[in-house]
């Protein structure tokens, strides 16, 4: 059913953006508050703690760094997918989108296999102390955001791809929205990594 609502595809004359982009930015504002609250909680707990280990003494810095680069690359492929769609190159856009999807999967794989699994093996569960508690909550929530991003990207790669043939501009807009979200998730990690691993 095509509703044909105003500004669904075309930009609004005053705000200069279409509905979806506006909504994604509002959503990201709420996400800032969500992660902001968790970061504040971390600061408060750490300030009040009797002892708190430095991240690099207990976490795997090289794997964390590698994962950071994986995410940075995935943002680059994401934006390239959108840029390709902008010049009407669907095949290339889809290829870049697939790369983004694979890089996200790589990030999660590394995270689970080389970080979470050994820690659980060593008995370093979230309940071990508040360092591991905040580590698992923050990275876990970030991981869920990555999974969410993969679901969206996967949707536009496969079942949602037909929109390109019906309304290429609409499809490109949706990829832009996905890209905005994906950039945000990556930015969160770029803040998360030094806070947890290096300080």
């Amino acid at each position, binding site marked *: 059913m095509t*509703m044909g609502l105003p*500004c669904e595809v075309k930009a609004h004359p005053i705000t200069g953006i279409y509905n979806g982009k506006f*909504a994604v930015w509002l959503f990201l504002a709420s996400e800032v508050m969500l992660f902001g609250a968790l970061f504040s909680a971390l600061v408060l707990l750490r300030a009040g703690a*009797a002892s708190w280990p430095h991240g690099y003494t207990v976490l795997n810095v090289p794997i964390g760094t590698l994962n950071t680069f994986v995410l940075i690359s995935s943002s680059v492929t994401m934006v390239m997918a959108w840029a390709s769609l902008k010049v009407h190159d669907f095949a290339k856009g889809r290829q870049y989108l697939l790369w983004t999807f694979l890089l996200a999967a790589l990030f999660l794989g590394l995270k689970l296999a080389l970080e979470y699994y050994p820690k659980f093996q060593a008995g370093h*569960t979230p*309940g071990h102390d*508040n360092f591991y508690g905040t580590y698992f909550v923050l990275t876990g929530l970030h991981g869920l955001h990555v999974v969410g991003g993969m679901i969206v990207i996967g949707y536009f790669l496969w079942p949602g791809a037909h929109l390109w043939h019906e309304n290429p501009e609409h499809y490109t807009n949706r990829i832009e929205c996905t890209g905005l979200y994906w950039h945000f998730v990556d930015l969160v990690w770029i803040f998360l990594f030094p806070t947890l691993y290096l300080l």
Partner: protein
Amino acid sequence: MAESHAHHAHEPQDAHGHGGDHGHGHPELPFWRKYIFSIDHKVIGVQYAVSALVFLFFGFCLMALMRYQLAYPSTPLNFLNGIFGERRWQSGFMTPDFYNELGAMHGTIMVFLAIVPVLVGGFGNFVLPLQIGAPDMAFPKLNMMSYWVYVPGGLIMLASFFTQQGAAASGWTAYAPLSVIAKNGETLWLLGMVFLITSSLLGSINFIVTVAHMRARGLSMFRLPFFVWAQLVTSFLLLLAFPPLEAAAVLQLMDRVAGTSFFLPSGLVVSGSALQVAGGGNPLLWQHLFWFLAHPEVYVLILPALGIVSEVIANNIRKPLWGYRTLVYSTIFLGFMSFVVWAHHMFMTGMGTTMSTFFQATTMIISIPSVIILTCLLLSLWGARIRYTVPMLFALAFLPMFGIGGLTGLPLGLTTSDIHLHDTYYVIGHFHYVVAPGTIFAVFAGIYYWFPKVTGRKLNDFLGKLHFWPSLIFINMVFMPMFFQGMAGVSRRLYDQTQYHSGSGVHTLTQISSWGAWLLGLAQLPFIYNFFASIFVGQKVSDNPWNATTLEWAAPSPPPHGNFAAEPVVHRGPYEYSVPGAAQDFSPQHIA
């Protein structure tokens, strides 16, 4: 109604299109698409409103039970033993545990399942797109989703009553560590909250985009009805204040199920044995995160109510609202300030002078826009020609009731007087005056006002007055005694106040309050009858029965799918009543 085809010819049929619209080759939507998983903002609005009113009634029933325990703590009600079962009701008496469950769930249901959904989900959804001349919300499917995320949240909350260990019993504030060491109901409470928060987030995004992008031609921001402004500010509060509570809920959920100790300090000894957790957490962290949400939440409960009241008053005074721009600026300022007052709920937590100075100062500052808003509405009455319609009665009663609620906030916002009054019945009286005779009266005003738009029929006037006057009397009978109980020093959340001498001293007041509550319940019967009967036999009225100016009255009643026959164009501000030289005493926004 037939004209609607001209403009929205490609759209599916009007849900209310009485027969005549059939046979144009448009497939009729199946029942479940039209009324259950509908993406029409009007159907979703009605769904929200009806569900929320059911929850409101349910929350009221919980309270009516509690009021019996408070008024007659030593008179058994044996016939309830079998009904509630051993765990909840023993030898004719409610158990203390059940009392705490009722208390926690009453608060949660009223705030998160009744008032916010009826104001934002119900009135916001139904009225807002009509008032801005839009065919629907910006994201109809997202709109449907926020309703269908709200429903499971509510069902999880209700289901927790039937679990073996009962519902959450740590108050609607769920203070840690009590809530962390509490029984399983608390886990369900947290899960339910995550659903409700998500639903509000989705809704608020939708509202903001709708107001920004979907306004009719000529409808500039300062031509918006005040109701739309109130909803817009409310949406921003929901958008930015709810995520910290979501974070807090996740942390508490971890504390409960994953053995972390974010809110548990080291060295806890519960029921004589040391608690086996790592410790090192901070109970105040929960309170900070919770109140960072819950104070803006207060304005979420009151701003849309102010919006409704302003609409009804503007319509019934037959003149423009006094200081429209002042109202708007005050509301925006209120929204901003509501983010920096949260710790005034925490004055008794051992806060020092620096923090308390900041928070009591901001609290005094936030009282000023509220005073200004009330003043604007009061001054609007000067030189008016007041029509005492039923919605107007509720809207007018709202003003002094909200005034009492606001004024009694002063002694609570000042740290020194708060020492005595904090966590006493004075607090309960204060916030109930804001949300019960305040917000709920606004909800009634809104129902009586917009019912003709939803159904095409009017609610009965006589029954409406029969609803209004007893409600006004009894609701004051419920809450006025609480200020005196609080003064006497009766603590909140006591299963049996007479255990303390302060409580036995005011026991008569407690009983008056309880009788007030039960009579208030009876006073709603005319409304319930009126509501259902009028859907079928109410007096049929025109599209604009109140001679109003705002855009929702330009649409047919009930509005068809797509709302307007032709996209309206706006020529003037929202409250142009009694314009000198005009033919009528109202000049609708859309008529050139």
